[in-house]
C-alpha cells in the first residue's frame, strides 16, 4: 500500500519542555517525523512549547506553533489549520495525553481530525491498568499478580495468590507516599491498614513483589498490514525495582537463551496485536524470574519512547522516521533500510557490538531529595557507549558520563586509592559497601567495584543486588585486569578478585612504576577491556599524554567500525561509527576519498549564505575539508538540549559550506546523534583521549568546541596543546574570559564596570575578600556550568558554610567571590562577532531579579522595562567586549542593571541613573541561543558556525540586529514534583531541566502563555495565598489589592491580613504552621487554593515556608516565589480576564 492520499495536512504534537522522563529524545523523534512526512509531500503543522528544539526551527515544519500544550490552545490551532490527521505517538506521554484530551473533549470529532497510528481507544487500552491486565489475560500472558483492595479481609485473601514478599501501595495519596514491601503476614496487614488510612479513596493496591527479577524492554514496530518486527531487545543491568530510565541498560539482551528470547518476542507480537496499535513503534517491558524463567508483562507504551531513541541509536534503525511513514500507510517492506539501501525496513537489526547506557543524575542539585532509585524516574540525562564487548562498552559509558570518572575506577574519583596508589582516605568500609549495594543509588555502580576490591565474591554481591551474575562476572574481569595492571606497575603478583584463585603473575620488570613493565599483550587486553589512558596513567603514575605516546608507539590504537543494522552482512552506506580495540580493520572513509554518500534529506535547513559569497579561510572552500563538532554529552541540569541544538546547527552550517561535518557525542537522546545530521557521526565519550583519536583518524581540519556547552570547553586546552586546530574564538580568549585577573584588566581597559570581586584559592582568602567587598557576596567555583555550588551569602557564617562546598565543586580551581547586587535587573545578551562586525540578536531582560540563576529565570525579548538608552549602552558594551576578546563566533554576556543613588545628591530618596554592571562573559554558545533564534527568526547558531568556518557576517548578509515585532518570554521548568518534599525556592544554583516560550504582541499575554506552557495554570478565579518577605511587603500588598479588585479570594497570615484590612482588602486569615489549625496545608488539602505567592525569608525543606511551598507543589498548585514573577503573573491574570489568548505560527510571525 502506498502512502495515503486522502490526508494532506498532519498535526504533529511535540513533548514540551525537557523534564525528567521526557528529554531530547522527543526532539529527535519529532524532527525525524517532520522530515519523514514532508518528504512524502504532506503539510506538517507542529505544536511544541519548547523553543530549544530542532523540531521548532521554522524550516522543519510548514506551520510551527510554539504554544502551550493544552487541549484548549491546540483546539485554536486546529480551528485555524484544519488538519486532516493528528499523529500523537511521537511526542512522548505529553503528546499522547494531549491527544487523548482533545479526543475526550470532542475536538477531534468536531473538526474531523483523524488520529493516526494509534486510536484513542487503543491508547486507553494500553494505559488503563485494568484494561491492559484483562487484555494480557486474554492472550495468556502473565502480569504482576495483584488487586486493588478496600478491606483488610480482602487483602488477606489476595495474599494467598500473590505470596510474600508483597508490595502494598495506597491509591491516590498526596505527597506520593509510595509503595512498601511486606515480608511477613503481620507486616502485610499493618501496611494494608496504614494504606487504607492514607488513601483518600480507601484503596490499596497489593501486588506480588517482582523486585530483583531481570528486566527487559522490547522495541516493536507494526505496519498496517500486521507485519511486526522487533528492533531491539534491551536488558536492564539493574533488576526490577529501579525505573528503566534510571537503570544501566544494555543492548542487545545478554542473558537470555534463544528459547527465552523467542518467547518474549512472541509475547511482544501478541501484545501489540491485542492492544491494537495500528502502526508504528511500541515499547513493551517484561520481567523474568531468574530462578525459573517465569515471564511477566509489566507495561506497554503505545508510542515512540526514550527507549526507542536508545534502540535507534543502538541499532541504526530510525524508529521514529519509520513510525511516521507507517502512520501514513506504508508497509514496512515498502520502505528502504537507509543504512544498507539495498534492503528494506522490514527486518530485525542484528548488531555485532555491545551498547551500554548509563543514566546521569543531579542529586547534588537537590541535596534534600531522597537519592534512592525507585520506580519513579529521577535521572536527568544519559550517555550511551558502543564497544566491541560488554566490558569495553561499559567502561566507555562510565567515562562518557562526565562525572570525573574515566572508567570503572582507577581515576581521581576512585575512593579505593589515594593519589599515589595508597589506600584512599575515604575508602568505604565493608558495611558501607554492603549498604550501598543493597539500596540502589547513583553510587551503586562504583561500589560494585569496591565490593570486588574488598574481597566480596560475585555470589555475595548477587545476593545483595540481584544484578545478573553474568554482568557481575564481566565487572570482575575488569577488576582482575586492574589487578594485573597494578601488579605490572608494582612488580607484585596480582591480587585475586572475587574470592577466586590467585592469577599467575604476568611477566613484569621489577622496579619503579613504568609503562615499560606493561607488556604489549596486557596493554591490548586493558584497552580491549575499555581501560582509558587516564586510568592507565593513574595506575602507572604517569601523565595521560605519556601513556598515549607510549601506547601509540606500540601501535595500540583503536579502529572505527560501522553501526550498520546488519552485523556487516550488507555494505553500510551511512557513516555512523564507534571505536573499539577489538579490531584490525578500520571502516572510516578516508579523507579526500570520494565523499561519503550524502544523504538526500527532504528538508534541508534553509541556507543563509548569499549566493556568490566565497569562504575566506582555509577551512571553507574545499569540499574535502573536515571539521569536527564536539557535542555536549549526557544532559544534565545546566547543559542540555540547547547545546545540542547549537551543535546541529553547526553541522548544518558546515554542510551548507561544503565542509564535511563530523559529530562526536555520547548522548543517545539527541538530534546530533542522528545518523543524517552530520556527514560522519562518531558515537564516543567526550574525553581528550576519545576525541583526539577521532580527530586524528578523520584528519580534522578544524575542531569546534564552542557549541557543546562546558563539556568541549573543558577539553579545549588539552586538544589545542595536542596540536588540534580549534576554530573560532581562540582557546586563549576563552580562558581569558574565565580568568578573573585577565578579565578585570580587560574590563578596565574598556571602561566597563564590574561588581567588586576577588579570587580565592583558600577558604581564608574567601573570608578576606568578602570582608573587603562587603556582604552580600556571591560565591561560586570557576569553570563550572549551571551555577553548581553557587550561593549568595549574607553573612560570615553562611559564607563559611558555602565556601567549603564551593571548593569541593571547583575541583582544584579557584573560587570566585563577587559583590552581590541586590534588586538588580539581570540582562542576558547573545552576540556574534567575526572580528569585523558584531551582531547582537538578543538582549534578554530577566523577570526575576539578579540572584536567581539565569537558567532558572524567566526572561523576555525584547527587554520590557529597560530604557532605549540603557539598551544602547548594553549593545555598545557587548560590541566592545566581543572585539576586545577576539571573539569569532558566539558570545554570551550577563549584565546587571542597578538603579543607583547618585552619591552627589544629598537626599537618599533621589534615585538617578540606572547603572550597567558586567557580571560575566562567555565566548561560546549559550543556553539562550535557541530561544533567541525562535524569538527573532535569526538562525543564530548557524550564522555563528559559518563565521567560525571563515565566512564573515557581511558575506552572509547578516549586518543588522533583528527587530522582532512581538514579545517572547522564556520560562524555566523544574523537576520539583519528582523530588517530593524539597524546597522549590530559586537561587543562584540552576535547578531547571527545561524551558518553554510564550509569544504574543503584548508582554503580559506572552508571560501568561509562558506560564501556561510551563504548567503554571494562572487561575481566573479562586483563592490566592499571599505571603511576602518583609522587603516585598509593600509590593505584595499592592498585588493583593489588584487581585481583590478582580474578585479573587485572598488568603493571608494574620499580620498580612491586618495590613490588607487597613487598605480595605478583606482577606481570610490563615494560621502559620506553628499557630495551630486550620493552616495553609489544610486549605491545600481541601483544594481551596488556586495559587500561592510566597517570597522567601528563609530557605530549606524544614522551614515553615519551605513546607508550604513543597506541599503546594505536591498538590499541583502553582507557586510563585519571586516578587517580580508575582507581579508579572497578576498583570497576566488581568490580561487573561479581559482578552483571549491567540495563536500564530512562527512562519506567519516572521513573514510580517
Amino acid at each position, binding site marked *: 500500500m502506498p502512502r495515503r492520499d486522502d490526508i494532506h495536512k498532519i498535526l504533529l504534537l511535540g513533548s514540551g519542555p525537557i523534564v525528567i522522563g521526557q528529554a531530547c529524545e522527543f526532539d529527535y523523534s519529532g524532527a525525524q517525523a517532520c522530515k519523514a512526512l514532508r518528504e512524502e509531500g504532506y503539510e506538517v503543522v507542529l505544536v511544541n512549547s519548547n523553543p530549544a528544539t530542532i523540531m521548532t526551527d521554522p524550516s522543519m515544519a510548514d506551520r510551527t506553533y510554539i504554544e502551550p500544550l493544552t487541549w484548549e490552545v491546540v483546539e485554536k490551532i486546529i480551528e485555524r489549520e484544519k488538519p486532516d490527521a493528528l499523529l500523537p505517538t511521537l511526542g512522548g506521554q505529553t503528546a499522547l495525553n494531549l491527544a487523548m484530551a482533545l479526543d475526550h473533549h470532542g475536538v477531534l470529532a468536531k473538526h474531523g481530525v483523524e488520529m493516526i497510528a494509534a486510536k484513542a481507544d487503543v491508547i486507553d487500552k494500553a494505559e488503563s491498568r485494568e484494561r491492559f491486565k484483562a487484555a494480557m489475560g486474554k*492472550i*495468556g*500472558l502473565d502480569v504482576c499478580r495483584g488487586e486493588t483492595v478496600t478491606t483488610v479481609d480482602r487483602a488477606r485473601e489476595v495474599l494467598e495468590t500473590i505470596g510474600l514478599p508483597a508490595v502494598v501501595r495506597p491509591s491516590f495519596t498526596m505527597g506520593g507516599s509510595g509503595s512498601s514491601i511486606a515480608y511477613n503476614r503481620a507486616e502485610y496487614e499493618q501496611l494494608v491498614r496504614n494504606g487504607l488510612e492514607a488513601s483518600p479513596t480507601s484503596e490499596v493496591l497489593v501486588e506480588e513483589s517482582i523486585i530483583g527479577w531481570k528486566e527487559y524492554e522490547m522495541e516493536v514496530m507494526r505496519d498496517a*498490514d*500486521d*507485519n511486526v*518486527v522487533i528492533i531491539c531487545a534491551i536488558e536492564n543491568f539493574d533488576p526490577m525495582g529501579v525505573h528503566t530510565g534510571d537503570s544501566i541498560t544494555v543492548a*542487545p539482551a*545478554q*542473558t*537470555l*537463551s*534463544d*528459547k*527465552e*528470547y*523467542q*518467547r518474549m*518476542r*512472541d*509475547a511482544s507480537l*501478541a501484545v501489540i496485536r491485542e492492544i491494537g496499535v495500528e502502526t508504528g513503534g511500541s515499547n513493551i517491558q517484561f520481567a523474568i524470574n*531468574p*530462578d*525459573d*524463567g517465569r515471564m511477566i508483562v509489566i507495561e506497554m507504551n503505545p508510542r515512540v519512547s526514550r527507549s526507542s531513541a536508545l534502540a535507534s541509536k543502538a541499532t541504526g534503525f530510525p524508529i521514529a522516521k519509520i513510525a511516521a511513514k507507517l502512520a501514513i500507510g506504508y*508497509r514496512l*517492506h515498502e520502505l528502504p533500510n537507509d543504512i544498507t539501501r*539495498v*534492503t*528494506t525496513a*522490514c*527486518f*530485525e*537489526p*542484528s*548488531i*555485532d*557490538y*555491545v551498547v551500554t547506557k548509563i543514566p546521569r543524575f543531579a542529586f547534588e542539585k537537590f541535596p534534600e531529595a531522597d537519592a534512592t532509585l525507585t520506580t519513579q524516574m529521577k535521572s536527568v540525562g544519559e550517555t550511551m557507549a558502543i564497544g*566491541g*564487548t*560488554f566490558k569495553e562498552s561499559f567502561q566507555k559509558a562510565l567515562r562518557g558520563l562526565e562525572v570525573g570518572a574515566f572508567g570503572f575506577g582507577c581515576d581521581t574519583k576512585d575512593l579505593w586509592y589515594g593519589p599515589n596508589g595508597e589506600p584512599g582516605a575515604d575508602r568505604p568500609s565493608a558495611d558501607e559497601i554492603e549498604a550501598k549495594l543493597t539500596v540502589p543509588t547513583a553510587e551503586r555502580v562504583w561500589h560494585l567495584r569496591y565490593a570486588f576490591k574488598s574481597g566480596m565474591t560475585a555470589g555475595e554481591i548477587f545476593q545483595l543486588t540481584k544484578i*545478573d*551474575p*553474568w554482568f557481575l*562476572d564481566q565487572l570482575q*574481569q575488569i577488576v582482575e585486569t586492574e589487578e594485573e595492571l597494578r601488579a605490572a606497575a608494582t612488580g607484585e603478583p596480582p591480587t585475586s578478585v572475587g574470592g577466586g584463585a590467585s592469577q*599467575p603473575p604476568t611477566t613484569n620488570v621489577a622496579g619503579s612504576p613504568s609503562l615499560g613493565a606493561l607488556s604489549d599483550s596486557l596493554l591490548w587486553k586493558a584497552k580491549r577491556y575499555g581501560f582509558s589512558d587516564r586510568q592507565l596513567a593513574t595506575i602507572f603514575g604517569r601523565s595521560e599524554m605519556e601513556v598515549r605516546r607510549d601506547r601509540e608507539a606500540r601501535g595500540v590504537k583503536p579502529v572505527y*567500525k560501522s553501526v550498520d543494522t*546488519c*552485523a*556487516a*552482512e*550488507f*555494505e553500510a552506506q551511512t557513516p555512523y561509527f564507534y571505536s573499539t580495540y*577489538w*579490531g*584490525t*580493520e578500520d571502516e572510516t572513509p578516508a579523507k579526500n576519498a570520494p565523499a561519503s554518500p550524502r544523504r538526500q534529506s527532504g528538508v534541508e535547513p534553509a541556507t543563509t549564505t548569499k549566493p556568490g559569497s566565497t569562504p575566506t579561510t582555509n577551512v571553507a572552500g574545499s569540499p574535502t575539508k573536515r571539521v569536527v563538532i564536539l557535542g555536549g554529552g549526557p544532559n544534565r541540569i545546566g547543559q542540555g538540549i540547547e547545546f545540542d541544538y547549537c551543535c546541529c546547527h553547526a553541522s548544518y552550517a558546515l554542510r551548507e559550506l561544503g565542509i564535511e561535518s563530523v559529530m562526536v557525542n555520547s548522548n543517545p537522546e539527541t538530534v546530533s546523534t542522528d545518523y543524517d545530521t552530520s556527514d560522519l557521526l562518531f558515537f564516543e565519550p567526550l574525553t581528550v583521549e576519545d576525541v583526539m583519536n577521532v580527530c586524528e583518524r578523520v584528519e580534522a581540519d578544524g575542531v569546534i568546541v564552542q557549541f557543546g556547552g562546558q563539556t568541549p570547553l573543558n577539553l579545549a586546552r588539552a586538544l589545542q596543546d595536542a596540536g588540534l586546530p580549534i576554530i573560532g574564538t581562540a582557546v586563549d580568549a576563552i580562558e581569558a574570559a574565565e580568568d578573573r585577573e585577565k578579565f578585570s584588566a580587560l574590563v578596565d581597559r574598556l571602561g566597563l564596570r564590574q561588581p567588586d570581586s576577588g579570587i580565592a584559592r583558600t577558604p581564608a582568602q574567601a573570608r578576606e575578600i568578602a570582608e573587603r567587598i562587603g556582604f552580600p557576596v556571591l560565591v561560586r567555583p570557576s569553570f563550572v556550568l549551571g551555577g553548581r555550588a553557587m550561593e549568595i551569602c549574607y553573612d560570615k557564617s553562611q559564607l563559611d558554610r558555602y565556601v567549603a562546598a564551593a571548593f569541593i565543586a571547583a575541583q582544584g580551581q579557584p573560587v570566585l567571590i563577587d559583590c552581590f547586587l541586590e534588586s538588580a535587573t539581570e540582562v542576558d545578551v547573545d552576540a556574534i562577532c567575526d572580528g569585523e562586525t558584531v551582531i547582537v540578536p538578543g538582549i534578554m531582560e530577566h523577570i526575576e531579579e539578579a540572584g536567581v540563576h539565569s537558567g532558572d529565570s524567566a526572561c523576555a525579548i525584547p527587554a520590557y522595562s529597560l530604557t532605549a538608552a540603557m539598551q544602547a549602552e548594553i549593545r555598545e558594551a557587548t560590541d566592545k567586549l566581543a572585539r576586545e576578546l577576539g571573539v569569532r563566533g558566539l558570545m554570551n554576556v550577563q549584565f546587571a542593571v542597578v538603579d543607583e543613588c547618585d552619591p552627589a545628591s544629598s537626599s537618599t530618596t533621589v534615585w538617578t541613573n540606572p547603572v550597567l554592571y558586567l557580571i560575566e562573559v562567555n565566548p561560546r554558545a549559550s543556553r539562550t541561543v535557541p530561544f533567541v533564534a525562535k524569538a527573532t527568526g535569526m538562525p543564530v547558531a548557524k550564522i555563528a558556525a559559518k563565521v567560525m568556518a571563515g565566512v564573515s557576517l557581511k558575506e552572509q548578509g547578516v549586518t543588522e540586529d533583528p527587530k522582532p515585532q512581538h514579545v517572547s518570554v522564556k520560562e524555566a521548568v523544574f523537576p520539583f514534583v519528582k523530588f517530593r518534599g524539597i524546597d522549590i525556592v530559586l537561587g543562584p544554583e540552576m535547578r531547571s531541566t527545561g524551558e518553554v516560550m510564550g509569544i504574543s504582541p503584548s508582554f503580559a499575554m506572552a508571560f501568561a502563555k509562558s506560564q501556561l506552557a510551563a504548567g503554571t495554570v494562572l487561575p481566573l478565579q479562586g483563592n490566592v495565598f499571599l505571603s511576602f518577605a518583609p522587603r516585598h511587603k509593600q509590593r505584595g500588598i499592592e498585588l493583593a489589592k489588584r487581585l481583590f479588585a478582580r474578585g479573587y479570594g485572598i488568603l493571608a497570615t494574620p499580620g498580612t491580613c491586618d495590613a490588607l484590612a487597613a487598605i480595605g482588602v478583606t482577606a481570610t486569615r490563615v494560621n502559620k504552621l506553628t499557630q495551630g489549625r486550620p493552616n495553609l496545608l489544610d486549605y491545600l488539602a481541601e483544594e481551596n487554593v488556586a495559587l500561592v505567592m510566597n517570597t522567601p525569608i528563609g530557605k530549606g525543606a524544614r522551614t515553615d515556608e519551605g513546607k508550604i511551598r513543597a506541599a503546594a507543589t505536591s498538590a499541583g498548585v502553582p507557586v510563585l516565589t519571586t516578587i517580580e514573577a508575582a507581579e508579572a503573573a497578576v498583570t497576566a491574570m488581568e490580561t487573561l480576564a479581559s482578552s483571549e489568548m491567540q495563536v500564530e505560527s512562527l512562519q506567519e510571525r516572521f513573514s510580517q
Partner: protein
Amino acid sequence: MPQPAKLALEDGTVFTGNSIGAPGETDGEVCFNTSMTGYQEVLTDPSYHGQIVTMTYPMIGNYGASDADAESSKPQVAGFVVRENSRLASNFRSEQSLGDYLKHHGVVAIDGIDTRALVRRLRSTGALRGVLSTTDLNDDSLVAKAKASPGLVGRDLVSEVTPQESLAWSQPLSAWTNLDGSGDSASGEGPHVVALDFGMKWNIPRHFAGRGCRVTVVPGATSAADILAREPDGVFLSNGPGDPEPVGYAIGTVRELVGQKPIFGICLGHQLLSLACGAKTYKMKFGHRGANHPVQDLTTGKVEITCQNHGFAVDPESLPAELKVTHRSLNDDSVEGVSHTGSAKDGAPAFSVQYHPEASAGPHDSHYLFERFMAAIRG
C-alpha cells in the same frame, strides 16, 4: 593461560586468538551467522556439517549450554569462531559452560579475533575455505592447508550426517515454543509423517509430533518404494548440509514421490524438491545465515522474519512450469519457497521453503507452514 589458536583462510588471511574448545585442527568452509541468540542450536544444526561457523554477535556463551537446546545428538560444525567466549554461564536452564561443552564434544574453537573483519572479508570475497588450529600455528602452513580443504561444492555431505537406521519419533515441542504451551502433547494418533533425514534439525519432527502426528524418521537414502511401503500420509524432506546436486539418490526418490503423497521440504529438502522437478541450484556468494531474514509470502503478501541457513539456492530462471515461487527474500529477492502445481493432474500437493519454519534458533513467525502441511495431508 589461554592456549593460542589460529584461523587461516585460503586467501592468505590469518587471525590469531585463543582456543576456547578442544585442542586440534579442523578445516571447512568458513561462514558467518548473524543470530544474536541460539549459538547452541547453530552448533548442533547438521546443515553446518563441513563448515567453520563465525558468530557475528560478539558475546557468546553467556547463557551456557543445555541438552534441551540441542538440534541433534552433538555439535555438527567443523569449527567455531567467536569474538569473546563467556567464562561464566548465567541462566537457570544452563547445564554447563559453552567452553566445557565445546571441549566435551571435541569442537575446535577460537575467540579473541576481529570477527567483523572476518565477516566483511567473507561478504566481499564470498565464502572461503579455512583451517582452524591449535596445533599448527605456522601461518604459511595453515594457509596451504586452507587451500587444500575440499570445500563444499560437488560433495555429498548428506551421507556423513544422515542416520543409518529409521526410528519412530515421539519427542514433542518444548514448553517454550508456544505462549499458551500448546503443541507439547504428542498423541501420535494423527497422520503418519515419514521424514527423510538428510541431517534434520530435531525441532522439525518435534513440530510434527507436537501436532499429534505419528513420525517416522528414515535415512536420507531410503528409496521411494520403502517410503511408500510405510504408508505415509505425508512425506517430509529435511534440511541438510552442503551442495544438493550431488545428492542424486535423494533427488531421484523425491521425483518418484512427487504427486503421490503430500510433500513438505525445508532448506536442503526445498532444493531437492526443486531439483527433482527440473530446476537448478547455484552456490550463493556467502549465503543466508541468521535469524532476521525477511521473507514475503506471495500468496498472502505477509512478511515473516525467518531463520535461515543455506549457501545454495534455487535458480528462479530454471524453474519448470509446475513449480511456482511462493516466497521471496526481501533482502535479495532470492527464491525462498516453491509450490508444485501438479500440472493438470490432481496429484498430491508438494511445497517447500528455503528457510527454517521450525526456527530454533529463530523467530516463530513461520510455524503456519506446518499447519499448511497438515492441511495438505488432510486434503
